[in-house]
Every structure is written in C-alpha cells, then in structure tokens.
C-alpha cells in the first residue's frame, strides 16, 4: 500500500496553458497554437486532447479535439476546428495570451507501422481533416518514404484548409467538394473508389469524417478488402476512460449479440473498421 510503488511517470497531463497564436484559416475554421510541451512531445498521430475554457459551468464538459500539428522545439501543438456550436464559437474569440484548460494526450493513435501497409491513404470529410496533418508529418519526420495520399471531401472551397501543408510534405492530395467549387463535385468516396480500382499495392485507409461518410468508406474497404481505420467522434464526458459514456459497439463474433461496449476514448478514437458494429 505504499504510494511509491505506483508513482510511475505520468503519461497524461492537464493544466491551464496559454494560446500562443490564433489563426483564422477559412470560413468558420480556426486554429489555435497552444503551449504544452509534454503534449507537443508525446502526442501521437490520431490522439486528441480535451479542451475547456475555464471553471465555468456553461458548457460544463470539455470538448475533444484532435492534435492537428506539433512543434516540439517550441513545445506547441495546434487544434483545428470549425466554430459551429457554443464551445467552438467561444474559443474562436480567444487570442494569444488567453488560457485554455487542456487534458491530453488521449486515445489510441493511428497505427502507421510498415507492417500495416505500403501506401497510406488518408480519407477526410470536412473537419475530419484535423487529425491527419500530424500523421503525415510524423511519417516524414521518421524518414518513412511510403507514399501518402489524401482524399479530402469538403462542403465548398471556403471550407478547405491546410492543402499547402500537405503538399509541402509531398502528400498527393485530391479534393472534392459538395458544390464543385474546388475539385470535382462529388463525395469523397468517388475519387477513393477510383483510386482503389487502380489496385494499389497494400494500401491502408485512415478515415475521419461524418458518420455516413465513415460508414460508406468502411463498406468500400470491406468490398475492396483493404485495411481501414476509422477515427470516431463520439460524444464524450471524461475523454480518458472512466465514465464509459462514449460507448461504441465492438464486435466479438458473428452473431447479432456478439459485441461488447468499448470506450471510444480509450479503445478509440481510432478503431479498425471491421471491429465496429454499426
């Protein structure tokens, strides 16, 4: 019962930290640079942080956001988001020097090892894009030379962000929009299917976006028999695994009743598509 035995190195961190920069990227899309060296250092691609403004009770719960980019030298990471609801509108008004309460890094990252695939295929719908830059950058940092492709579906040209950043990393990007204002007028599944029909060598899909899009991509992946990882955005309370509020159905067999409830924040947010019962 001595506390020393348990005093391991802590792997999650929480405190109030300053925003170092706020960018307005496009439309309602913003990016905050946040100073938190442990997270900049430790966050793996696909992981997320829980963000809260203060001790206010409205809203009460923190909100989960993907780690979009890290700058280890300066101990800074970014979150990228669309200001749509109460919380995101509130933080969109915050600027350098103001503080956010951050908890992270959280969740299961994208498995990006060379055992997974020979081509990394990122599939983003809308703000699902947020989680991918860190992934592409991490591969390049590690000297990984496998091709990285990004299929990116957005509402319109005003809601497309970070294209240059991906291109600078040598990622081949294909953008489609709902209204055709940038790239083809199509859903992201169209260019993805086209690509898969070229029979690429051992690709794996990494998908983040709205539910119908993730479901559609999962089905395509199943048909084409390619590995597919989804990054789920469920409603969360604790974000760290204690409340079991973020339940997702995980397959344990083939019967209708063969499933358990897993936690999207611990067993996910990244989950192999075939493990998920829709």
């Amino acid at each position, binding site marked *: 019962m001595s506390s020393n035995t348990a005093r391991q190195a*802590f792997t*999650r961190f929480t405190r109030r930290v300053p925003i170092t920069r706020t960018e307005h990227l496009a439309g309602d899309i913003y990016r905050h640079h946040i100073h938190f060296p442990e997270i900049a250092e430790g966050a793996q691609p696909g992981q997320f942080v829980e963000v809260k403004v203060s001790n206010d009770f409205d809203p009460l*719960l923190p909100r989960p956001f993907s780690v979009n980019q890290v700058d280890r030298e300066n101990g800074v990471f970014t979150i990228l988001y669309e200001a749509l609801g109460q919380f995101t509108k509130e933080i969109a008004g915050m600027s350098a020097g103001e503080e956010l309460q951050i908890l992270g890094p959280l969740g299961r990252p994208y498995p990006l090892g060379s055992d997974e695939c020979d081509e990394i295929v990122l599939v983003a719908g809308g703000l699902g894009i947020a989680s991918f830059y860190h992934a592409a950058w991490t591969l390049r940092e590690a000297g990984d030379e496998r091709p990285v492709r990004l299929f990116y579906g957005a509402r319109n040209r005003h809601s497309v962000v970070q294209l240059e950043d991906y291109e600078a990393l040598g990622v081949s990007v294909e953008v489609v929009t709902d209204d055709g204002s940038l790239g083809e007028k199509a859903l992201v599944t169209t260019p993805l299917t086209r690509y898969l029909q070229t029979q690429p060598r051992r690709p794996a899909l990494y998908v983040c976006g709205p539910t119908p899009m993730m479901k559609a991509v999962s089905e395509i992946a199943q048909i084409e028999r390619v590995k597919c990882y989804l990054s789920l955005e469920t409603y969360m309370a*604790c974000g760290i695994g204690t409340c079991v509020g*973020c339940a997702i*159905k995980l397959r344990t067999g083939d019967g209708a009743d063969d499933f358990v409830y897993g936690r999207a924040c611990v067993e996910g947010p990244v989950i192999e598509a075939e493990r998920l019962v829709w």
Partner: protein
Amino acid sequence: MAVEIGPVRLKNPVTVASGTFGFGREYAQLFDLSQLGGIFVKGTSLEPRRGNPPQRIYETAAGMLNSIGLQNDGVEAFIAEKLPFLNQFDTQIFVNIVGNRIEEYAELARILDDQPGVAGLEINISCPNVEHGHAEFASDPTATCNVVSAVRRATGKVVIPKLSPNVTDITAFARASEDGGADAVSLINTLVGTAIDVKTRRFRLANVTGGLSGPCIKPIALRMVYQCAQTVSIPVIGIGGISTWTDAVEFLLAGATAIQVGTASFANPLAALEIIDGVEAYLQDNGLNSPSQITGKVERGPVDPVL
C-alpha cells in the same frame, strides 16, 4: 484532515464518486491517487454487465445526463484485475455494489469480505439507469432496511447505503439505513431526467431517461444532506455537484463527514486534489485542524437583507 467513517480512517474527507473515477487506472496516469481520502469504484455486480446502448451521455445546463447502465466486468474480474492496481495506493477503497435481489447484494458482500484491500461497501440501491430490479430498494424504506441488514450480516466491512434523491422524503431512507445497521449513508445519487433532440424528435439517450449529475443538482443534494444529517447519528457522506472547495465546505457545514467528487472530475480531472487543498486552507485560515470541527456547524439565523 483525517476523518472517520465507522472504523475506517480517511486521510482527508475528499473521496471520488462511483462511476466517475472508473477503477483508478485512468486518473492514475495524471496524479498520485494516494492523495485522495478514498475511492468509490464503479458499480460492481456479481456477473458482468454489458450496460445500456449508446448514446449514453448528454450535457445539460450545468450538468449532464448519463445512462451507462452499470456496465462492469463483474466482481471476480474486479478482485483479480482492478483491486491489485488500486491497492498500490495509500487510500481507502470502497466498492459500489449492485444487484437485482437482496441475495445478490449479500453474496457480493460475502465475496468482498475476504478482500483485505477493500475498506467498505457502498450499497448502490439508487441507480436510476437499469430496467429490472432494485427500484424498490430506493423507494421503500423497509426494502432499504432489509438490503442493508442482509449486507451487514454478510460482512465485517464498513457498510454505506447510497440513497436516491428521487423520493418524497429521503430522511426515511437514511433512518432505515441506520436501523439496518449501516455505518454511514452516502447521498445523493443522480436525479432522473431526460432530453430531446428537436431535430430528430428523439430522446437524446437511447435509454430515454438518464441520471442528472453535476453543479445543477448541488442545491438539492446539499438540502438532502442537511436533512439526513439532522435525522441520523451515523456519518453522512455528501455527494452531488461538488466542484470546488467551497462546495465541499458547504457540504461539511450541512453535516457531511466526508464528500465525494463526481462529475467535476470530467470537467477538471484535478478537481478532487484542488478541493483537498482548498478545504485544508479554509480550516487553517479559520484556526481549525479537523474537518469534523465544521461538520454540521451551519447556523440558521438572520441574513442581512441589505448586502
């Protein structure tokens, strides 16, 4: 800062509430759990429970609804996999037990009685989120008394029934608990609530209703703790919306011997630690050295109308 719940000594009166702290593993990644007065682990049943279908949680004004449905791996898994981890820390472990019938509660108590790493049992007779069973334990004082005495007979550990606020007179249940041989009572569990999505015209929770927790319920919880502390002579453990050290001090003043921090940990994982520091500073600033010196010390009296 130490307080006593029956024969169990807590190093400080600040514990964490069942279902909001898992089995300690997650928050142990953030801070040393030995700082806590105690840990009430997630509701544990004889057999594993799958829990309710999602969506299970929804945020409301200064609160949240949950309908987890007591998902847990069962008491054997608890003993084999969770308890050893928790016992690394210098804090008191209380198991929140849940069953459908009195015999199940008694059986859980017997099984856990063997475990030296368990300080006490919190009898969860008040979870609003499961369809079958035990609603009567929370709404009929006689049933409460029966389940408490069955558990009492089955274990030498500290026995703490956890009371439901969804009743006309909570003091009747506190009294029934005392009569049944409880060492303490803890209150409140969540209030039953719901929410609807006007777009889809569906309930926000798959389970229709859920338990309301968080700062929004604090005034109700504080009133009930006050009433129960006036009624019984066993210790009262205060729960409900406690988010800051002033909240904790309010509960102590109302008559609580110890408190549990629940939903607040989601908003701020360090809430319990900050509360420990704040309560300690409050006692110091007032020249006191023990939380028990303020327990129940709230006074009625004229409040200045002109501020």
